[in-house]
């Protein structure tokens, strides 16, 4: 499993890519691995505002359904609409084609509370 160094992570298995005032959010390799074959991704409408920790969408696999939690507070700028027809992108390329949303970030200081790749990996169960 891969956890790119340049990304930030949450305990609820989202990754965050900081691009100045905007962040890109996705699910980690570990999350997609646990969920197995993803069959449906529900992403929020552009313009909706969320607080850190709120559920912004749902990811559904054959086995289970899981909430996607917003790693930061802010407004949705763009959703990855290709996931509607190709939910498997989250499995195949979780840090690339499988990205979920772009968000305008409200408070940059919130990013400091997120985990580094090393810290995130430290939280994962050893199997």
């Amino acid at each position, binding site marked *: 499993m891969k956890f790119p160094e340049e990304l930030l992570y949450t305990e609820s298995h989202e990754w965050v890519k900081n691009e100045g005032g905007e962040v890109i959010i996705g699910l980690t390799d570990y999350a997609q691995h646990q969920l197995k*074959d993803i*069959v*449906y991704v529900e992403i929020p409408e552009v313009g909706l505002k969320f607080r850190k920790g709120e559920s912004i969408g749902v990811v*559904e696999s*054959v*086995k*289970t359904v899981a909430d996607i939690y917003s790693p930061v507070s802010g407004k949705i700028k763009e959703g990855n609409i290709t996931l509607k027809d190709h*939910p*498997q992108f989250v499995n195949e390329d979780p840090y690339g084609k499988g990205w979920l949303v772009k968000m305008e970030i409200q408070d940059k200081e919130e990013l400091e509370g997120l985990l580094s790749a090393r810290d995130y990996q430290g939280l994962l169960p050893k199997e």
Partner: protein
Amino acid sequence: MAKIKDTGLIQDEPLIFEQGGKGRKGYSLPRWDVEVAEAQSLIPTQLLREELIGFPQLSEVDVVRHFTRLSQWNYGVDSGLYPLGSCTMKYNPKVNEEIVKMSGFSNIHPYTPEDLSQGILKLMHELQSFLAEITGMDEVSLQPAAGAHGELAGMMMVRACLEARGERRKKVLVPDTAHGTNCSTSTIASYQMVEIKSNEKGVIPSEKVAELMDDEVAAIMVTNPNTLGLFEENLGKIAEVVHRKGGFVYCDGANLNALMGILKLGDLGVDVVHINLHKTFSTPHGGGGPGAGPVAVKNELAPYLPIPVIEKDGEIYRLNDDRPYSIGKMRAFYGNFGVLVKAYAYILSMGAEGLKRVSEMAVLNANYLMKKLKGHYHLPYDRPCMHECVFTDRFQEKYHVSTLDIAKRLIDYGFHPPTIYFPLVVKGALMMEPTETESKESIDRFIETMVQIAEEAKEHPDLLRQAPQRAKVRRLDEVLAARKPKLRWTGNQ
């Protein structure tokens, strides 16, 4: 013409749309004594279909054989053990069916006046009092059509009662072991769900509830026994904590099969509970019902019960709609009446002692199963269970065999698989509920099969990975089916 296949008595049956022939029919009408008119002259053209693609034309025997063949592929509790945990698939005594078919029950019109339907009302009133007695509650409404519908009725009553007090609370506490419906119910009743983590013993710690409980919390929704098949031993204390802050205790009664005649949920401080008649009280279900999810309440919530309420006035039974605080109607007419009759017949034929014995046997059978399979399968909560037990695939992981493979292999041995991957707090869960109606021989056969499958996982894991091999269809591509569902027949193209 269809290709000839040597499927023997498996009877490879095409869709009904793929059968029949032009002009074939299953009726014969007398000669017309009116003039024949073309459809176009009677119906506006924009409402007419030009062509009915693939509409089947069949004789009576075509239709009878088609559905008989399909029914022969079916597996139900009348064919064998059906250990679907959290679902109580017990045998449904045929006497219930005989009773409900009686003309007085099956042919009565819902608009029959009260004075001509006294027998029906008496049955419903008595069923209400039986359910109140079994659950230890004060009043009951039989209207909700299913468990989740009963939950919604219950939470709407909680909301109505709080609003009458002038309180607008926002949150509902739900444990991580809950049925998914509890989360949906609290959301649909406009509450925000707050999850409580169960502890290492698989139950809700009362300290955790105390931490989360404040005057914003309307209720806690608890299933007892919970979905791990464990008794929520702290429920009494939890109810105290919740009541002290002015909240209500909702109990999901889906697992009542473990408690009848042994413990009354009302005595533990439960304020409102729904009962799945189609599970505990042995009416057939599966494939979407019909079910019945009566909701039982303590006096404080009784003014809010759905209308109409059946009341006994001297020797006369009446339907009372004049209930100003009622949450209103939950269901057309009086609920799924046929299911109510079957449950009533079941309760009367079992009697109080019989129902207690049901729960004792259900718990004994589940513990027997648990004890015998322990060691062969990983038991995440190693303590006495109630009416069902939960294993995992952890011991089989090293052979690259999963819960799904184990479940599919059971089909090769002629068993319906148990509930899998639920509850969500257990990774790779296999949740088994033998119920009280299985004999020891039947449970032993299931145990031997499960043990053999555990051995096969070590020696011949491919047997599991490729299962089922002895079923009507092999393993389906669930991922493709979920990603690209085909929801309607689109012709022979």
